[in-house]
């Protein structure tokens, strides 16, 4: 491995969170953007080709070393680490709406989901998955919510655009409307 790839590996190993590309670049002032990208590629290939128990993943505009999925059960069984709790269906529905329509207020979410979402918003906010990003124009200037970098991290997304575009969503029920 090149010295730069080794440096990046050390930094990624030391960090518990994904490291944004620009912060990786700051590790070596002389390295160009292309050199960093090449070193990251080298590191990823090193893990993949040589067969390592960890892999390099791009998440939320940053990079992180994660264990491979096949070892999760063994690690968890040995109680060395435990998986975070699953999100409830209500939480996922609320997150899905916010991810696509942010900034989005509580009233709109409740209108689409057909249930009150106060407690769900609170717990999502507590988990750092959403944040208040502004206030709406309407009555009472409602709080508007948006997703956070932790949201991308939780779902291991590079960026929001990685989610399917709305027009890509194949609505299973969509059939040609009959003349009513």
């Amino acid at each position, binding site marked *: 491995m090149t010295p730069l790839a080794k440096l990046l590996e050390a930094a990624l190993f*030391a960090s518990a969170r994904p490291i944004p590309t620009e912060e990786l670049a700051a590790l070596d002032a002389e390295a160009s953007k292309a050199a960093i990208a090449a070193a990251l590629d080298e590191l990823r290939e090193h893990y993949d080709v040589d067969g390592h128990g960890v892999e390099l993943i791009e998440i939320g505009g940053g990079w992180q070393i994660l264990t491979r999925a096949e070892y999760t059960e063994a690690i968890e069984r040995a109680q060395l680490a435990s998986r975070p709790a699953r999100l409830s269906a209500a939480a*996922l529905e609320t997150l*899905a709406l916010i991810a696509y329509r942010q900034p989005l207020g509580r009233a709109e979410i409740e209108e689409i*989901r*057909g249930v009150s979402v106060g407690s769900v918003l609170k717990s999502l906010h507590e988990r750092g998955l959403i944040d208040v990003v502004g206030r709406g124009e309407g009555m009472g200037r409602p709080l508007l919510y948006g997703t956070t970098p932790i949201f991308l991290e*939780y779902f291991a997304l590079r960026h929001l655009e990685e989610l*399917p575009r709305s027009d890509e969503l194949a609505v299973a*029920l969509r059939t040609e409307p009959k003349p009513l």
Partner: protein
Amino acid sequence: MTETATSPSPYASDVPSGSFVVELTEFSGPLDLLLTLIREEQVDIYDIPIARVAEQFLLRIRTLQLNEAADYLEMAARLLRIKALMLLPRGDGAESWEDPRAELVRRLLEYQQMREVVDVLEKAGEERRSRFARAYLPQSAAPAEAPLALSLSELLAAVDRILRTTKAPAVHDVIARSVDVPGAITTIRALLALRARAMWTDIVTKDAEPWVVLSTLLGLLEMAKLGECKVQQPRPFANVEITSDPASEAA
């Protein structure tokens, strides 16, 4: 959207009345339930047989947790309203007739689209959950303090200093002084024997000690209870007027 084995069937009719034990945990909301019904009944979402679906919907929500009920009941009301609107004669201008179900269809499609995103997120979340990052080791907030370098003489000097500055604790002797109610009653009786009407200030002087005041008050209340005298106060904080009760005198 399959029902789990542990959750009671929504059709169960043997649920004792008055208990709300059935949780619709398998549905995340009324739209979810509605969509499930439409799938189960295999009907066209653009041509929902509203009477049948409304009936099924009501059947399912008959037993609900109280805090969830409102959202489902609101949808039930909506369905029944649409059902009623469908029964209204459409009039001549069929062109201008708007299907009362249109709004519901729009919401269902929107909800369905959101559910697809949920599926994507669920998959992505599961994928991430199956990988571990480096464990987070919380840093200790402050660096550990340097060990104390101290000689025995320094320690003894410090102890001495502290002992010097500490005053002997102030000790008060508290003597219990009992309240003398019978004595106070005797005094009041003697006073009332002299004159029929007395004021509180006649009995209790301004510089009277608290135990005297308390004794007199208790004695006065006791006498009033026995009917030996009448105690009156024209307004709050005014002087108390004591009169010997003629009834007791007669007796």
